[in-house]
């Protein structure tokens, strides 16, 4: 089971944030087929948001074929987005952690780290395209 969180300052609407978090959990293998999503009641009790927002997010996911609702039981994952690369995630994550700690040692703050990563990522993609 995953736990949702909302970033009020992100400017992304709450229902999109919920969808993103489910998709991300599916991609990273935190959620796999057969896992249950938190019930609507649990989500609203945690986040203090409108139940219809959660329903909207779950319906969207259902429409994408990622989850299915079973009446009276809950909503379950029906498809996984994680692929064969999942095994490589661990070492990559460790590398990234080392990189982050060395960035901190060099004196970068959170925003600089994010900016540097995002910029390098974009530049790398551009080069790959060429």
């Amino acid at each position, binding site marked *: 089971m995953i736990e949702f969180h909302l970033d009020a300052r992100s400017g992304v609407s709450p229902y999109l944030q919920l969808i993103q978090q489910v998709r991300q959990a599916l991609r990273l293998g935190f959620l796999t087929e057969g896992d249950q999503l938190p019930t609507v009641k649990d989500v609203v009790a945690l986040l*203090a948001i409108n139940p219809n927002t959660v*329903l909207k997010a779950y319906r969207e996911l259902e429409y994408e074929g990622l989850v299915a609702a079973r009446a009276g039981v809950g909503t379950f994952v029906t498809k996984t987005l994680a692929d064969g690369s999942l095994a490589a995630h661990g070492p990559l994550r460790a590398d990234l952690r080392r990189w982050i700690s060395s960035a901190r040692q060099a004196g970068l703050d959170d925003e600089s780290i994010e900016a540097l990563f995002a910029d390098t990522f974009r530049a790398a993609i551009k080069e790959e395209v060429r």
Partner: protein
Amino acid sequence: MTAVLSTKGLGKRYRRRWALSDCTLQIPAGHVVGLVGPNGAGKTTLLNLAVGLLAPTEGTVEILGGIPAGSNSQLAKVGFVAQDTPTYAGLSIADHLRLGAHLNPGWDPGLAKARISQLGLDPEQKAGKLSGGQRAQLALTLAIAKRPEVLILDEPIASLDPLARREFLQTLMAVTAEHELSVVMSSHLVSDLERICDYLIVLVASRVRVAGEVDALLASHYQVTGPRRDMESLPAGWDIISASHTDRQTTLLVLNRLEPALFGARGVAPIGYAAFALALGVTAGVLIRRTVPAMAATLAAFTAVQFAWPNWIRPHLIPPAVVRERLGTHFNDLIVSQPGGRMTITGTWYKAGVWLLSNQTVTPSGHVFTGPATSACLGNSTQACIAWLARQKLAQVVTYQPASRFWAFQWYESAVFVVLAAALGVLCLWWMNRCRA
């Protein structure tokens, strides 16, 4: 889906001052409704009228289809927490629960006890000794434990600190999800309402300024910023709600209120209609020569043309756009025909600046959706029904005219009718010449 609260021309006067006037509302069930407005706008008055604590000076108000506080069963269906969440200071929490059990036919003692222990409150404690947040939670518990169908809250969170506010809203939303309550709450705290409410009513100076589903309101209101200019006129159907200017910039809040009915209602098209009607009357008079039959013929011909025009002729002149989209998250009507037990759905569709002509729900294979009424949608659970509908992978086929064609339509339409009028005029002259000869 019935209305939770419906008012018609509702007004309340205290001596000379009108606290609420000309309030007409229809709030559908299953929403968390936010009622906002400055102090003294009439929020508390409206809520007190809705629960029957006040009697209206004019107009009518109905809650769940009945007169507020009209009968015992009616009272049992409505939960109300007044401003500043009043409790009896001298009574303990347990006393409050006992009181609730005696006064309410549908009281749920298990729910009340569970909520109190969940909040970590001591049942023996006097209500007067509770903190503001705890007192609000107690008042909410009492209102919930009577198992109402609609919960009305008057500024429940205004006096609470941010933490207590969050806890209160968490409880409120959990209960709303579990028991499928409708909630109407007034508040000043827009940031909280933003997350909680899916329906918004804005009261300003004792009148309803805006009311509607938040999604629809957001889809029809736009904030526009650009180089400084005086906005004397906007295209038809766009209204300026507010405008502010700096030296270089103009910021506008605009509302798009285009509706299909606007086709004939504004612009120059009515000139064409009038010319045509006049020519038709003259022609009928010349041809028939007797007043009453001529008038009847005129009326019949005009009605026939006005009916044929939007239904057959106009769509051929300028074919409407057709898009296929998935069924909207909010479908507003589920129509179940009772004898055969078939059900059909009409979805809502929001797109700024279009005239919606038709909106049909279709299955993946492209057929108009109609099916045997499923038990999921016949029961009381909206959630079960929505879940079932989502599994059907329904789409909606929407036919519309973009608003950019408004003036093209207007000129087209007036031209056609003026030409028709001229043709009738020529016919008249020819007929009169023939008669004279």
